[in-house]
């Protein structure tokens, strides 16, 4: 059992309860075997609660902590991080940064090895877990050639090998596509059947709706409300939106189509093909047309070739000899490199300078201060023009990158997974940004597996599978049905597996 007694925490050392992630007077009781979801906007403090449970606060992240956290009858202050970790497993948001080892076998054994368990016992546990999770195909592999979804499953299995009573997950699905999320759900279901206490900080609620017992809604460091999933299912889309929660059932999705303006212009891609040395082609598109003046969503499961597609389109892949045509212009690779801009999934990689203003200036053909300021103003960034880009929030960074794209007169703009890990409000902010750049002389492409984002801003869908375009359709009411079907499919098949 976990009990929080009047817990307050702030990441600053002076005790002021300001800034993101701080907590105020939290009282909370989670019973053994219960699965609870902590939800709320980014920065509301839900991650902080998970860190208090797995001991990273106060032993790794420093700050000011008052109140007591009692875990299985012991005060967490009297335990070391090692003691807490023995009985608490953690799964984190970013699959890239939560492995200590380079191969899956070592990773599964890691926690037990650190606890000094006998080798035979560890091997027995690994064998058991591998069978229970059905992950034989993931064993003996390097983590560097696994997809994000596969890594997340290994992270869950690693927790299971150590067999703790409490399992904490911090936004585990935010970098996953639907299929991988369905796999994650299976793992949580296994733990639930083993009577583990499960705490999940998450804003995608839908995949949890039939496993979790309660949802705590947190706002500005306080637990404002607690719901059961039945109560959430009753709420309308607007009610959920005002709480900042993502939809729980299909019916709560906004089902109106986005206004589609028929545009004659299109960007025609010809002969887009790419393959790594001596392996099957990752991308093989003979011809594909992407409309101008619309926002096109590119969807498909992991490994469908989405990121290769966007890299080829930007002209970043030298071996891809394809051309793009529009208005009788032919764009070869180098031309596309000049005409296109990709807002990367990790925007941090594309901000180089010491201030937002400089960032925009270096993107311009002729560096004009007035024009740069004007662009910043249009994106609501003028006040931040002297800030270091790395110190901005995620959404602001993204706007900064968009400002650069506008400054450099790019006509093709690609957003690569722009909303992975964002809550509802920030997701809408991104959707607004994307709509803002849309105009008749631009071609906007959104690569995403965020259904809600696509529904809220896209007007056209291109679906890739195994490197080929297998369908493309406008997002009218008919198209929405097809889109939702595609996103629902993995969950239907997974529930079949179980029953």
């Amino acid at each position, binding site marked *: 059992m976990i009990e929080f007694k009047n817990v307050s925490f702030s990441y600053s050392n002076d005790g002021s309860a300001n800034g993101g992630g701080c907590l105020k007077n939290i009282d909370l009781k989670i019973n053994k075997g219960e699965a609870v979801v902590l939800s709320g906007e980014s920065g509301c403090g839900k991650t902080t609660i998970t860190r208090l449970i797995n001991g990273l606060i106060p032993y*790794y992240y420093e700050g000011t902590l008052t109140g007591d956290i009692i875990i299985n009858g012991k005060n967490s202050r009297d335990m070391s991080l090692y003691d807490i970790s023995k009985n608490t497993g953690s799964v984190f948001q970013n699959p890239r940064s939560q492995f200590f080892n380079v191969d899956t076998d*070592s990773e599964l054994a890691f926690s037990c090895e650190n606890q000094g368990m006998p080798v035979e016992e560890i091997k027995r546990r690994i064998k058991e877990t591998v069978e229970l999770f059905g992950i034989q195909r993931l064993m003996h592999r390097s983590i560097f050639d696994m997809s994000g979804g596969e890594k997340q499953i290994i992270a869950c299995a690693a927790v299971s090998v150590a067999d703790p009573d409490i399992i904490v997950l911090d936004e585990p699905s935010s970098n996953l596509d639907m299929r991988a999320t369905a796999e994650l759900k299976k793992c949580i279901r296994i733990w639930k059947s083993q009577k583990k206490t499960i705490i999940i900080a998450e804003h995608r609620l839908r995949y949890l709706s039939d496993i979790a017992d309660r949802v705590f809604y947190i706002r500005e460091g306080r637990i404002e409300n607690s719901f059961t999933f039945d109560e959430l299912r009753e709420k309308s889309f607007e009610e959920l939106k005002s709480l900042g929660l993502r939809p729980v059932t299909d019916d709560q999705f906004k089902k109106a189509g986005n206004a589609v303006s028929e545009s004659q212009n299109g960007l025609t891609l010809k002969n887009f093909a790419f393959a790594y040395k001596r392996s099957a082609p990752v991308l093989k598109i003979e011809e594909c047309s992407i409309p101008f003046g619309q926002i096109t969503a590119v969807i498909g499961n992991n490994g469908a070739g989405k990121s290769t597609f966007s890299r080829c389109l930007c002209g970043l892949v030298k071996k891809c000899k394809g051309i793009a045509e529009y208005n009788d212009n032919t764009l070869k690779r180098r031309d596309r490199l000049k005409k296109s801009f990709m807002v*990367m999934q990790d925007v941090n990689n594309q901000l180089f300078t010491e201030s937002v203003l400089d960032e925009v200036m270096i993107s311009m053909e002729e560096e004009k201060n007035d024009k740069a300021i004007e662009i910043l103003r249009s994106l609501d960034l003028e006040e931040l023009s002297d800030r270091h880009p790395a110190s901005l929030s995620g959404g602001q960074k993204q706007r900064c990158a968009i400002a650069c794209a506008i400054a450099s007169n790019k006509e093709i703009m690609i957003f690569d997974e722009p909303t992975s890990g964002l809550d509802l409000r920030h997701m809408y902010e991104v959707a607004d940004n994307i709509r803002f750049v849309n105009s008749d002389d631009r071609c906007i492409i959104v690569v995403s597996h965020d259904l809600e984002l696509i529904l809220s801003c896209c007007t056209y869908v291109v679906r890739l599978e195994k490197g080929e375009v297998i369908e493309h359709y406008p997002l009218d009411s008919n198209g929405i049905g097809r889109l939702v079907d595609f996103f629902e499919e993995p969950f239907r098949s997974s529930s079949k597996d179980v029953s």
Partner: protein
Amino acid sequence: MTDDIMPGAVHDRKGVVLDPRTKLLLLLMISVFSWSSIGGRAGWIILPVITLIPVILLYFSRKWKGAVISTLLFLAVNLISYTDLNKLSGGVYYIILMIVGIFGRLMPCIIMAYYLVYTTTVSEFVAAMEKMHVSEKITIPFSVIFRFFPTVREQMHFIKDAMDMRGIKIGGKHSSKYIEYRLIPLMICSVKTGDELSAASLTRCLGGSVRRTNICKIGFGFPDYVIILILIASVAASVIVRLV
């Protein structure tokens, strides 16, 4: 995409398997023989002989590509070293000089290092170090380096892409700041990822006072003894030649 520096990351038990400690000893001996005068007058024969060990082992480990390349390098360097090319002059001569004087001595170490890195998993390596009673203070950061190196590399590729899209390149706009623009985001992102990595590892019980166990089994076998014997013989030979 990910150019692994420990590409033998995954258990790949094919062919002759050596204990990592033997490989390390071999690497050390080859380094010492090629970079110092320890071989004395017998060095010219000892070095090629022990360099042949990893070349042959690469065939036994079925690393065909590496095996063929290292065989060719081995033959080329040795042939050039023993051929009289003094009559040549100018640039060509200096290139040959470099090959003999520098690359010729780098080559044995590189082949051995290649063999070691491509046939040893990180966990085997750590297990070997633990058996040699190397402190955790070395083994933990050591494994983090191998774990993190490809991640940083990957990040570097992303940044290169981003720079291409913005038209920043050497010889282009802002080339004076090229290095700054490449390094800054790399370090900022890597440090953040590193912090996440260390938080995650600590929740997996790393750093307790308990003595770690290791599921990775290593040990000496027949091939190990053969190689150690050859090494002992080489050292003995060089000592005897000196005394005579």
